[in-house]
């Protein structure tokens, strides 16, 4: 007959065994997530479980906003109304001209047998919260795969690009901001069409324009817009303005810092643009570019 200790003394495996087990499990998950991106299914399931908690965590903020809205005085609203009316009136002739131009453009394109650009659809979304992860710059928006959001779609607000959807859940998506260290965006100087690529800056909230020759024609205050050659961002969206240029004769490249045009700390409303249908699938497009830098961690940016 086996002697069993009373249940009070039965504490299961030793803490060291347990911690070893859970640490190995966590390391396995991390490797799967960071290296192979296999953990997305696990993430989807856990995200669904965490969703109610996140909504509850949002409640005090929503309450604050509604209270703040309630106390917004009518005077301020009237003022805003007048301003908007004036703005609309000023924009009306432009809009009329735009319509005729669009019609003309369509005709010309048809004439040239050019592939007609599809009008890009967009989804209106609201920023739920900014990620608390101090290592990356992300925000979470309230639309997910049920609303037709796909990973890789660009996100803009009323003044410019804020970033790109990098992970989609059922009811939410994560948007990586342009100022994230791993985020890159192809740009063009609006003044002279010079092309460049901006990366998330070393300083928080700024962008760096890397690999621009020291004698490149770029000045303080230049506006940079998306160039559209990546097939992800539509061309011509404002992205940033040049804040500072350091030209040092010792280096081949100039050090250029940009201030993003759009800011996520101001408004909560954003638009998720769907990429144009004719864009090539980025997974294939990225492959040849990755070959020279095998040693670097392959990143998936769909």
């Amino acid at each position: 007959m086996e002697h069993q200790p009373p249940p009070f003394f039965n504490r299961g495996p030793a803490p060291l065994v347990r911690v070893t087990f859970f640490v190995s499990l966590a390391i396995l998950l991390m490797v799967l997530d960071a290296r192979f991106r296999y953990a997305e299914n696990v993430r989807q399931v856990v995200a669904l479980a965490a969703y109610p908690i996140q909504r509850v965590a949002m409640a005090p903020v929503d309450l604050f906003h509604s209270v703040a809205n309630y106390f917004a005085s009518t005077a301020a609203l009237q003022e805003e109304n007048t301003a908007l009316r004036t703005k609309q009136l000023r924009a009306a002739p432009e809009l009329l001209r735009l319509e005729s131009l669009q019609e003309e453009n369509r005709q010309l394109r048809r004439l040239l047998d050019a592939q007609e650009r599809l009008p890009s659809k967009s989804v209106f979304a609201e920023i739920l919260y900014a990620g608390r992860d101090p290592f990356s710059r992300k925000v979470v928006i309230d639309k997910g795969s049920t609303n037709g959001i796909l990973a890789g779609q660009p996100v803009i607000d009323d003044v410019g690009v804020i970033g790109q959807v990098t992970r989609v859940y059922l009811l939410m998506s994560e948007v990586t901001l342009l100022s994230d260290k791993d985020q890159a965006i192809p740009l063009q100087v609006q003044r002279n069409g010079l092309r460049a690529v901006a990366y998330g800056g070393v300083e928080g909230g700024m962008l760096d324009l890397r690999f621009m020759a020291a004698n490149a024609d770029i000045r303080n205050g230049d506006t940079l817009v998306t160039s559209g050659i990546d097939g992800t961002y539509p061309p011509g969206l404002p992205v940033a303005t040049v804040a500072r240029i350091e030209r040092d004769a010792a280096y081949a490249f100039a050090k250029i810092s940009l201030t993003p045009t759009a800011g996520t700390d101001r408004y909560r409303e954003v638009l998720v643009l769907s990429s144009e249908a004719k864009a090539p699938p980025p997974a294939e497009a990225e492959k040849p570019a990755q070959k020279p830098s095998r040693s670097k961690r392959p990143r998936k940016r769909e």
Partner: protein
Amino acid sequence: MELREQPQRILLPAKVSFIALTLALALLFNLLPWRNIAGVPDLTAAVLAFWCIHQPRRVGIGIAWTLGLLLDVGNGALLGQHALSYAVLAFLALAVHRRIHWFPLWQQALHLLLLLLLTQLLTLVIRIAAGAGFPGWIYFAGSFICAALWPVLSFLLLLPQRQAEMMDENRPI
């Protein structure tokens, strides 16, 4: 367990529902929309360490790991990063839980500070290994705030266990 209580008191057994409630509230605090403010205290870690120290049979490494996983997904961080550091935190808290009660509260807070700093350091090492940049020294401020909050936290979390069902001046419960 609570040997440093001024009149030596025997605490009531902790309710599982209360433990779950406090952990859920701490998780909510962590998931509040902090707009990339560095140095926000990691309250989940502090409450977790508290329960690992005070109720080591109820709260342990498995619960810590699960909470960490929820936080990873909620924050959009690397999957398993908080899970790993919380599991290690729970292990360390379990390792010191027998002796930490012998110290006054502010010395307990120093113990906790060390544990939380180690946890944050672990997270930092993981993220830097995975290719992230250094977020600045302000990142560690959260641990100091949590350690400073430890006496308040201890008082609040032990409050329901101090409420005797029948008050009696001459009884230590």
